[in-house]
């Protein structure tokens, strides 16, 4: 199965990532699908990461955690958070097929980030839903 996103849709997603995350001090924000493909990725130019490898690992990691959820009778865990000393990473599901990943430092509080993530997800959905009909 293949899906495509047009320039205007990608521009829309990128501006959400920029305004809701990078402009507010998040180091990197990217949107991937569960196969590990990268749909959009932005960073603040000071914190660059190998997004292709991160996407592959994130999709695998999220898949593994979802499989564990099913085993213990949970529907799913819709978000994941890993805390580091300098940077932390937050994953959140967007519809069933996509993941929003943010990497941020101490300047950003987790509570604030969560709020932004849920706002961004609603906006991203309005772009992805028409483009991606499984």
């Amino acid at each position, binding site marked *: 199965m293949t899906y*495509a996103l047009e320039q205007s849709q990608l521009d829309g997603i990128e501006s959400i990532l920029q305004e809701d995350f990078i402009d507010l001090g998040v180091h990197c924000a990217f949107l991937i699908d*569960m196969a590990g493909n990268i749909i959009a990725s932005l960073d603040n130019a000071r914190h660059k990461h190998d997004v*292709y490898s991160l996407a592959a690992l994130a999709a695998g990691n999220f898949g593994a955690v979802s499989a564990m959820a099913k085993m213990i009778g949970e529907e799913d865990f819709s978000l994941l958070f890993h805390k580091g000393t300098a940077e932390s990473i937050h994953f959140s599901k967007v519809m069933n097929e996509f993941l929003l990943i943010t990497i941020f430092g101490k300047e950003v509080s987790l509570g604030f980030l969560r709020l932004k993530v849920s706002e961004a997800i609603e906006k991203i959905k309005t772009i992805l839903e028409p483009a991606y009909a499984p």
Partner: protein
Amino acid sequence: MAFINLKKREVQVKIVYYGPGRGGKTTNLEYIYNKFNQRIQTQMVTIKTQGDRTLFFDFLPFDMGKIKGYDVKVQLYTVPGQVKYNATRKLVLRGVDGVVFVADSMTVRRKHNMLSLKNLQQNLASYKKSIFKVPLVLQFNKRDLAEQGIPLLSLETMQRDLNTHLKAPTFEASAIVGTNVPETLKKIISMTMLSLEKELK
């Protein structure tokens, strides 16, 4: 699940190396990594056990350059071949666009090959994909072992065991030496791109 970025004119496809444990999947990727390092900007990611067996997957992003005006980025993965790791094997198959099945030519591995192929069929089916429709290349690996007098399955036997119904393209290979490793990769990429084009029509 290939993704086409019309803004960057970029296509991302996912190719998975599948097959029985110790068949040589990781060795295929290691050869590609060493041979084509100018096309690979990053490290190969591997999640393995202490004994070098793949625990979750290997990952290697590979830049194919331009095909019909699109930048083609191929994401290569291997699965863990050991029977007990089926849960993770299935995860890696999610959204797969093309499969290389690496079969082990050693006579003692005959059953393992057939079971692993059956397992591929089942795992694809769990994603509502048919093994007969997914772009698939068979690689008969470790042919070099013949020189050391190790008993190998004949090509006819391997064709009969694995390819009677599939009728997929096959390559005799040695992943450790590199024989037919690039050819296998080229073939699966071109089949995957063809099937993408068809799907887009």
